[in-house]
């Protein structure tokens, strides 16, 4: 029998999986996977900073919204830093991503040890943002994840023609009057949303896999985008459910790792199926 707590975690992870499956398709087709990875890592100093501020103000150190807001701000800053570095023309974008990812993460790790030296339990659970700990997910967190899934799927469906045009041939789309900058920003916003929402459950190290694995699996099984999108959501959701169940059955297995390993299994299976075909 599944306990109420497990059910909450399972549903929350399923919703996260569906959301990242939808957004991941376009992240993959637009070549934004590494940027998503950078944003996930760049979020850590924001999370830590928000916790520090919270300790200072004396608010509940385990309340998620302020921590995630901090993460979103830092993730956006990281994204901006990558663009600014690449725009100088001195280094290429992949190098800029490496620089930003590592330095923001290092800043976050230092912040974590600073906060650990503080007397109050301000750091409680903060290290879980690195590898994820879905078991601590509360009912309201699962509801938030569900809302996020709804928003992500609705946005990808509503923006479908524009996102597809952007990903296939941005110049042609621009010529037809599509605002590339704004559409790209909308896509990055969705990626950021999924990355930040996935942090507590999956952790910043693995959150990029949540975007990439379902989409890459779905790509191998589909030749058209609507099918790929549906498959990706299904794979993401299923990986979320199975990963959460496996993690609940093995105390100490981080949920994020379990979800990613299930996603990996789907990916390898799809790879083998396509090889046969």
């Amino acid at each position, binding site marked *: 029998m599944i306990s109420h707590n497990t059910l909450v975690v399972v549903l929350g992870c399923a919703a996260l999986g569906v959301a990242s499956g939808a957004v991941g398709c376009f992240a993959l087709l637009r070549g934004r996977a590494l940027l998503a990875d950078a944003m996930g890592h760049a979020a850590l100093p924001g999370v830590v900073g928000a916790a520090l501020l919270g300790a200072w103000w004396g608010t509940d150190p385990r309340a998620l919204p302020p921590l995630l807001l901090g993460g979103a701000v830092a993730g956006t800053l990281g994204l901006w830093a990558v663009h600014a570095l690449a725009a100088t023309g001195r280094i290429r974008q992949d190098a800029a991503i490496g620089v930003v990812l590592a330095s923001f993460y290092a800043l976050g790790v230092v912040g974590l040890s600073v906060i650990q030296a503080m007397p109050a339990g301000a750091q409680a659970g903060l290290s879980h943002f690195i590898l994820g700990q879905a078991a601590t997910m509360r009912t309201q967190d699962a509801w938030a994840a569900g809302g996020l899934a709804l928003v992500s799927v609705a946005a990808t469906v509503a*923006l479908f*023609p524009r996102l*597809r045009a952007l990903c*296939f041939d941005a*110049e042609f789309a621009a*010529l*037809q*009057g599509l605002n590339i900058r704004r559409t790209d920003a909308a896509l990055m916003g969705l990626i950021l949303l999924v990355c930040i929402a996935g942090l507590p459950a999956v952790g910043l190290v693995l959150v990029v896999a949540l975007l990439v694995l379902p989409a890459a699996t779905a790509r191998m099984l589909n*030749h058209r985008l609507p099918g790929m999108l549906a498959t990706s959501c299904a794979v993401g959701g299923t990986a979320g459910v199975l990963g959460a169940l496996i993690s609940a059955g093995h105390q100490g297995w981080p949920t994020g790792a379990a979800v990613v390993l299930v996603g990996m299994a789907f990916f390898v299976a799809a790879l083998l199926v396509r090889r046969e075909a």
Partner: protein
Amino acid sequence: MTPLSIRHLSVFYGERPALEDVSWEVPAGLTAIIGPNGAGKSTLLKAALGLIGHQGEARFFGTTLDAARARVGYLPQRASVDWDFPASALDVVSMARTPRTRWWGRLPRRERDAARAALAEVGLDALADRPIGQLSGGQQQRVFLARCLAQEADLLLMDEPLAAVDAATEREIIRVLQKLVQAGKSIVAVHHDLASVPHIFQHALMLNGRVIAAGTVAEVFTPAMIVDTYGPGLSDDGLAA
């Protein structure tokens, strides 16, 4: 009304000028842009279309690109996109109708029919549902041409429509281009094969970082001009015409 009028257009890649002070009135009919590699042929099209930063201006049908957008079509180089993208031939052609698409959901039937008609025009109606990754290079080029047709533009700017296609595809594409011109459209195409210029095109722009010559093929496509454009090292197969 001149389909496209380019005035004092310059493009710089860093410090290096790729195009310097190009002024050119595009005539009605079928026009080739010819010049050696790195002459700025694609750059000229992209700058005119506002896809890359430039100085100077390009006016379409006497007005700005924004005002004339619906009348301007573009065929980019085939290699400029990822043909492993999950889409059918019809999907790609349909993207030319995206401005007419609602925010959500499917393309209206009328738009889908227009995309199908464009595919039929290039002889690919039987392959409408084929994934683009499974098409041959020549078929992919024709899908791009169909997408360009589906824009229903009056001026079509094409970046190497005949690059790396087999002889049958080349004939097919040329037939479509000539039909378009007969229907009153104007076409500007970047072209590589010098030998075929007089057989296909009525006008030519000889380009090498700047305008070497522009006019009818009879006027400007002469051995002397070709040497001016390409330098003296060119083998004479292009000059046979």
